[in-house]
């Protein structure tokens, strides 16, 4: 406990020093939302890795693999494959057409106030559905790791993220993510080397031992996701949902141009992908060395698998090496949550302060100084709301929200974004149709599914993406057709395409 706390305080001091440094360099709106677009592709790649690897990835994938075998490996693979979609279709067009938010892209295509509102709704719903379980997870995790109470843990995490975002904006958020990514990758590398020395650098031994201990069924799929359609739904949710997650996509505004955005995706694919691949080996190693019983005893969901494995590899419980490794991994886990919640707060404040207040309410007529002030104040308000929701969420089943976040991103934001970028006839009616149908079908199906209602589920799939995603597209297409031809919008599409693919805006 005291080692964890010590290491964590060091990390906290580093991030606060970064925030102090970043705050002095954050004065304009472009600084606040996009770090003035002056990051390099490598910096953004590390920050993307820090942003995208939430606690669910860092702790969850290892735990799932340890307890359920191959299904955990599927969970880990999806988030890497998802970046193929982002690389091929989304990253460069996002960079070329938007300024600070997802709403910018939709708005620059449609130029209608209603479409902007729809985009704001998509961002806010996804971000809060993502933020609330992160806060609740932070509460549980910090309590387990350091012994302070759930409420205080949530408040502490909330205040830290408010400080990073409100003072340091995107620059501080980015460097918090970079620090976290470096720590996470170092922890992963150390654990990997320690595991390999245990098995004389033959990873196949891990599989053989797991099979011996838990029978061949452990290494088969279907131990966690029993319904085959849930496997497929999960795959779709990941591969297409990432492109609809505003807090990840806005990272592309922090680099100077589309080429840098492209290179930053290649960076994150190698950095995060290597870590995800690692979690599969860590999980199987933990099942071998620590044992499923000990993992379940510490936490039923397996979320403490990685810290326990680190402790074992460091020399075991009660040894200095074991305590040090446990403390290190635990502190990195807390840093992970801080990096992710900061990004969510910043991106939500973009949707409220930039999209809603400045562009919708004030129709863009706000001077720069006031806009920055509004953005900072909004991020404080969102942070306080997140703290309140996190405290209220104690003991509530938040698993459904995690599914909802990725499902809405895939079923509402993704269709609207992709059709905005590629379909000439797509119009404001389509934006509304896609958002409403995608959102409603995701929410309803998630709420009546097993994640919310357990055995009383009215609908068999935990993750409804396989149905809600086609429905979202259908809503977008029907909305477009019902709205009727928007000739002016269609004529503007040539100029828009030019901007999508070259970054040059024309009249």
């Amino acid at each position: 406990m005291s080692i964890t706390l010590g290491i964590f305080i060091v990390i906290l001091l580093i991030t606060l020093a970064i925030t102090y440094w970043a705050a002095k360099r954050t004065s304009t709106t472009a600084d606040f939302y996009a770090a003035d677009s002056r990051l390099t592709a490598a910096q953004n790649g590390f920050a993307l890795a820090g942003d995208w690897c939430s606690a669910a990835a860092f702790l969850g994938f290892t735990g799932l693999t340890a307890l359920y075998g191959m299904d955990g490996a599927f969970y880990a693979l999806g988030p890497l494959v998802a970046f193929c979609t982002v690389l091929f279709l989304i990253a460069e067009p996002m960079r070329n057409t938007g300024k600070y938010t997802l709403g910018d892209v939709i708005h620059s295509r449609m130029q209608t106030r209603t479409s902007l509102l729809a985009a704001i709704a998509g961002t806010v719903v996804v971000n809060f559905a993502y933020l609330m379980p992160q806060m609740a997870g932070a509460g549980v995790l910090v309590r387990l790791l350091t012994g302070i109470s759930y409420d205080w843990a949530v408040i502490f995490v909330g205040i830290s993220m408010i400080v990073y975002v409100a003072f340091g904006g995107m620059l501080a958020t980015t460097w918090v993510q970079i620090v976290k990514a470096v720590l996470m990758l170092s922890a992963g590398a150390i654990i990997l080397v320690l595991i390999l020395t245990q098995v004389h650098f033959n990873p196949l031994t891990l599989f053989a031992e797991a099979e011996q201990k838990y029978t061949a069924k452990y290494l088969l799929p279907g131990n966690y996701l029993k319904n085959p359609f849930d496997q497929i739904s999960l795959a779709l949710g990941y591969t297409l949902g990432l492109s609809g997650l505003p807090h990840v996509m806005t990272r592309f505004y922090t680099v100077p141009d589309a080429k840098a955005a492209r290179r930053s995706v290649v960076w994150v694919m190698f950095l995060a992908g290597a870590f995800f691949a690692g979690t599969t080996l860590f999980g199987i190693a933990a099942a071998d060395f620590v044992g499923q019983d000990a993992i379940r005893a510490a936490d039923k969901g397996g979320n403490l698998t990685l810290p326990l494995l680190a402790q074992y590899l460091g020399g075991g419980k009660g040894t200095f090496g074991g305590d040090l490794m446990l403390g290190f991994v635990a502190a990195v886990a807390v840093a992970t949550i801080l990096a992710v919640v900061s990004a969510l707060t910043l991106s939500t404040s973009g949707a409220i302060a930039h999209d809603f207040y400045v562009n919708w309410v004030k129709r863009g007529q706000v001077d720069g100084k006031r806009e920055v002030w509004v953005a900072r104040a909004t991020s404080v308000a969102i942070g306080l709301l997140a703290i309140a929701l996190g405290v209220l969420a104690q003991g509530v089943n938040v698993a459904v929200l995690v599914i909802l976040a990725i499902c809405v991103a895939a079923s509402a934001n993704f269709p609207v974004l992709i059709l905005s970028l590629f379909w000439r006839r797509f119009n404001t009616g389509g934006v509304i149709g896609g958002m409403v149908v995608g959102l409603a079908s995701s929410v309803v199906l998630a709420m009546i599914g097993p994640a919310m209602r357990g055995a009383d589920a009215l609908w068999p799939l935990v993750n409804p993406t396989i149905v809600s995603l086609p429905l979202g597209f259908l809503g977008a297409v029907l909305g477009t057709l019902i709205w009727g031809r928007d000739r002016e919008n269609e004529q503007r599409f040539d100029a828009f395409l030019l901007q999508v693919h070259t970054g040059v805006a024309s009249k």
Partner: protein
Amino acid sequence: MARDEAAALAAAYVSVRQLIAEKLRYLVPMTILFMVGYVGLTILAGFAKDCLGTKVVGPLNLGFVLIALNYLLSWVLAIAYGRIAADKFDPLAAKAAMEISQSGTTR
């Protein structure tokens, strides 16, 4: 708008269409490849469990081998995309950007 400016704008739009056609030529097969690779694997996981359990190398079964191949595929596609974009897409984008700047309508 002067006549040559209008011509430059039209030329820029034509270049962008060429660029999009070129992008589709590469990106459609690449997208199909990774979608089939990953979604196909999860379909096998759902409906052909025993097939994925076939042992390939020692204790390693087909499922884990395919998972490893999917990692490899994503990384290869990422590198390939970077190369293709630099060689094929960027020159076309630069051409269109030059034409549009000649048309004098850039903001």
